[in-house]
């Protein structure tokens, strides 16, 4: 399992556009991928799950990937978060 903490720097928090881009980029991976915020853990492949967290600006989230392609998945996550400009990783 690989795990990493990200700080969400976008003033609007984890909002629709970046969340959609992130979730959309992960469906191809086999690994289980989760995001945890304030003791609540959701499936990062689920847009409804991610939106239900309502992550505000400046907060930290823990993302974990577990499975055969976990390293690749984490790379994708870091890239998308940076491309979308919502986290400095």
């Amino acid at each position, binding site marked *: 399992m690989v795990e990493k903490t990200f700080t969400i720097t976008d003033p609007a928090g984890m909002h629709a556009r970046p969340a959609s881009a992130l979730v959309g980029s992960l469906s191809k991976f086999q690994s289980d991928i989760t995001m945890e915020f304030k003791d609540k853990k959701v499936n990062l492949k689920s*847009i409804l799950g991610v939106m239900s967290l309502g992550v505000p600006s400046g907060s930290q989230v823990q993302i974990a990937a577990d499975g055969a392609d976990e390293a690749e998945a984490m790379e994708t996550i870091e890239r998308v978060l940076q491309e979308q400009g919502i986290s400095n990783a």
Partner: protein
Amino acid sequence: MSRLSGIAASNGIAIAKAFRLEHPDLTVDKKNVADPQAEIERFGSAVDESIAELEVIKKRTAEQISEKEADIFGAHLLVLQDPELIGPITDKIKTDSVNAEFALHETSTMFVDMFEAMDNEYMKERAADVRDVTKRVLAHLLGVKIQNPSLITDEVVIIAEDLTPSDTVQLNPQYIKGFITDIGGRTSHSAILARTLEIPAVVGAKSAMSSIQNGTIVIIDGLEGEILLDPDEATLAEYKEKQTAFAGQKAEWAKLKNEATLTKDGVAVELGANIGTPKDLTGVLENGGEAIGLYRTEFLYMGRDNFPTEQEQFDAYSAVLKGMEGKPTVVRTLDIGGDKELSYLKLPKELNPFLGLRAIRLCLEMPDMFRTQLRALLRASVHGNLKIMFPMIATLDEFREAKALLLEEKAKLEAEGVEVSDSIEVGIMVEIPSTAVMADTFAKEVDFFSIGTNDLIQYTMAADRMNESVSYLYQPYNPAILRLVKTVIDASHKEGKWTGMCGEMAGDEIAIPILLGLGLDEFSMSASSILKARSQLSRLSKADMEGHVEHILGLATSQEVEDYVNSL
């Protein structure tokens, strides 16, 4: 011929046959199924069909409307492929041996309830997404047809109970000439979109669905909020003429978009826009605004549960300043209190909130909050032509105190090595009679005045503008108001300063000729009024209007002023 009326939501006249957009009956019954595996497959096919349909709608919307509007279907597609939605549904079919319709309905209701319970507008819209997607899949399961407006290829006007976001983004102005809904108001999602697409619309018509049949010829008058069914020849001719006249007027105004505002005798005045958020910039530029005469920063503070940070404010102010590309941008510092409250700032209840702790009074009472805003403004100042304006100034002491805080923050930033513009003008709103009366003294210290007429009228006439029983006292043309306006303008000009106006009155057809005669330098109004005002000013002579001022100020009542201007 018969008539209906509703709320005028988007300007213009549409004449076409009616197309009823009906939402099919999607009532769900719980049934037990003998073969859950087959039921899961049936559900899978309905999802696949829905995905295929959404891909087509998304593509059409992107081609015919915009990429941005197509995004909503991108979101629907993600929801349809969400393992947290699909997983529980198939599990439920399997473990409970229930039909797919019931499993879908139960699971999506849970998500809808969850999103709707959240105290956040954005999350509530997600509930609408889940509901929209659920309907689409249900329709496929039940074998009923959902109408998709993007598939219409005839000229029609749409009649509907209400339009869902997924309906409205599919409206192609080439075929959809207008729409009527039974519910909704001027600020509902569909009304706003109608104005963006520039198609006429009447909302809140109440009985359109129960009284208009498919194919009936309908006239929508989006200017008056009127609907005419089955018009006779004479009415049809009358409205075709009205339609041509409206198109002609719009074309005439559009020609003025990139023109300077010049009176008939060649005097330049400045037409600015009032905005609330950086999003409003588009409207300002599309309507040829020469300035922003009032940026109401309180919207940054509203609809959230804590104060906006310096960085958030800096981002918003910079976006507006950059977007205006060097054109004057007057930013009003926080005007909160009175009728405008913040959930996270508990202020004691007041007996007379409009006469209480609000605007600059509150900011001087809470200097830390105020300093944060001033720092954000100063940092943003290098991105454009910033002018800072303090609201609700009643005494010169208040202005001096606010300006001192501004200069302190400027010095601090410069000491930190942050670049700050050296040419920021600092002015005040004139909305309290004491300040209007003392304008000559203020003019020696401020860089400009902006007259806020809504409050100036309320305080001068001692009439609460929220109280309907005294609404007759809201009299912008009352000579008392006009004399105060003259005092302010004259005082500013004597010191080589300028005066703007940013209330409703600045865009008012009757007031514009008077204000021109009084020498007002800048008129700031809602963006959609700018081209109309520019057109009106091009037909007025400033010298002529100056000649009428003395007579107007000598009239006795508001009605006499109105009648006199109408007679010119």
